[in-house]
């Protein structure tokens, strides 16, 4: 197991390196000149050249990359062109927000998907199964930004039940005097809609997957044995069938994380949720290389870490895996 872990961590390191290189190059070949964004066009050319030199933009790409990697290894992500602050600080501000939205959506949607998926497979052929499967397919194929906007329009704009976007009500936080409970409630109030949208979408996939995995498992001979042993229906369903059907779920969860990451970026943007995803979009639009790069890298690192965790859970769940 330890050797396996070591192996995986090495693998992750290599993946990260390639990813960083790719992101770096991608931003360099993108149309548009960062210098023109950062520098005032009215500046005299000598001052411009000096600024470029300071920012390291006059060096050839490969030496820029080497410098970047060197700094990265020292934990220095550079300065955001746009905010004029260290990128690290900006990221650290955004990261917890993304993790909050993302983990809660993942846990809720996969938990629900598991619980409902196993039940609809167990009750195959009933109206309950048909209705939920149809609903699942519907949500699975829905276009996220559109769905998000519709939700905002209905619940925030028309009904006024939820804020239009953002994560907090600034006045409440700056005024002071608000109790911790009020602040938490404020965040939850903002979180509700984006969480709902993100959850609903990945929940559908999880439920459909659990359903098909469970249907597969129910055909196995050990399920027949479990029933023949005179175990109750619930024990057969949960302890024998669902426990095995869970295995492909864990694998799929790992794979789908990168997919839901892009869903996360869209959701954050639509709901102006101040997370890494939204920052990626605005930083890219602003040619803010250092920030955009770092945000990408952090998102990728989260996905890779989550994958590793999924692998460890899998090994724990399946005794046939011996690393």
């Amino acid at each position, binding site marked *: 197991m330890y050797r396996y872990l070591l192996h995986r961590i090495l693998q992750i390191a290599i993946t990260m390196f390639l990813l960083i290189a790719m992101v770096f190059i991608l931003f360099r070949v993108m149309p548009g000149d960062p210098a023109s964004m950062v520098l005032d066009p009215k500046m005299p050319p000598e001052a411009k050249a000096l600024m470029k030199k300071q920012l390291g933009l006059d060096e050839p790409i490969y030496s820029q990359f080497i410098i970047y990697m060197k700094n990265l290894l020292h934990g220095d992500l550079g300065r955001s062109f746009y905010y004029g602050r260290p990128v690290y600080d900006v990221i650290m501000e955004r990261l917890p927000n993304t993790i909050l939205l993302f983990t809660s959506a993942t846990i809720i949607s996969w938990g629900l998907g598991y619980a409902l998926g196993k039940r609809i497979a167990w009750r195959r052929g009933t109206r309950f199964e048909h209705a939920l499967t149809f609903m699942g397919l519907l949500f699975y194929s829905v276009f996220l930004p559109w769905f998000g906007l519709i939700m905002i329009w209905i619940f925030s704009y028309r009904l006024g039940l939820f804020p239009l976007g953002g994560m907090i009500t600034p006045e409440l936080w700056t005024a002071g005097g608000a109790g911790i409970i009020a602040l938490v409630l404020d965040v939850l109030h903002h979180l509700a809609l984006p969480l709902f949208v993100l959850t609903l979408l990945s929940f559908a996939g999880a439920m459909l997957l659990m359903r098909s995995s469970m249907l597969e498992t129910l055909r196995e*001979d*050990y399920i*027949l*044995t*479990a029933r023949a*042993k*005179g*175990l109750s229906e619930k024990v057969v369903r949960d302890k024998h069938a669902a426990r095995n059907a869970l295995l492909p779920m864990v694998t799929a969860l790992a794979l789908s994380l990168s997919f839901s990451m892009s869903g996360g970026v869209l959701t954050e943007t639509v709901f102006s949720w101040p997370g890494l995803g939204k920052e990626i979009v605005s930083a890219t639009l602003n040619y803010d290389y250092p920030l955009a790069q770092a945000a990408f890298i952090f998102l990728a690192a989260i996905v890779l870490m989550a994958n590793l965790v999924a692998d460890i859970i899998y090994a724990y769940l399946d*005794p*046939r895996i011996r690393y």
Partner: protein
Amino acid sequence: MSFFEIQGLRMHYATSRGRVKAIRGVDLKMDKGQALGLAGESGCGKTSLGLSILRLLPNNAHITRGRILFHGEDLLRKSEEEMRRIRWKYISMVFQSAMNALNPVYRVGDQIVEAILAHEDITKDEAKERVSELFSLVGLDPGRAGQYPHEYSGGMRQRAVIAMALACHPELLIADEPTTALDVIHQKQIIEKMDELREKLGMTMIYITHDIAIISETCDVMAVMYGGKIVESSKVRDLLRRPMHPYTQGLIRSIPPLHDSVGRLTSIEGEPPSLLSPPRGCSFNPRCAYSRDICRTSEPPLRQLNGGLVACHFAEEIPWP
């Protein structure tokens, strides 16, 4: 009242191509402690019969007629909960696919403990104790009860499944080709073990197999199934000495002779009957050398003859060398 009896059982599977009539009127009677060998070609309905008894048929299966009497009580009229309590405690089964009958994610011993605790009010430790006994009984090292199925060889898994089937000391054991996946040596070992256990525990057993040699060694009574029906049954010795039904005769001719090295093997010509649309009259008539007009129009009933039962219009006239 007999210990176990099946009366006029009919069952079909609903499929997109129509009804597969897997059991087309089966009658069977067993005394306590008896071992019945059930033989017949692949697809004739043996497994379906076994699953019907435990009421474990898939959802597309429908039992349309008949009774399955266990201690005189009709299992087909029991509630699901009553049936659950009968399974394994009174009637257990070794499935044809015994190799995959163990759940891959649980320790073998725990899977047996689970079966015991589902039916008996004993502690987990007592159940574990029994698992150890069962393991030694079937020739497995009790120390391996804590391992997972994938750590077992095929033969060990088969033994474990048999140990599991015996866990609650059932009165009736249905063994559906419990040794198909094994080589001859292991087959022989396991069969002998099961036979020994049956006598020791006074179990009644239905032994489903293609292998007539095994039946002749271990069973008291033999029944031959063809096209969803029992076409002949009697004491094993009688049946092997003088098979009455042309199908049984063909079956016995197709066994490779054990001591006779000059093999005169004849297999039965033709295809087994389609259970979607079984032939009219006697279902064996298209393959039967003795078939006459009546065989194509009227279905022969299972009737008494020479101390056994046979379903053939001309059983008296058909010779056996």
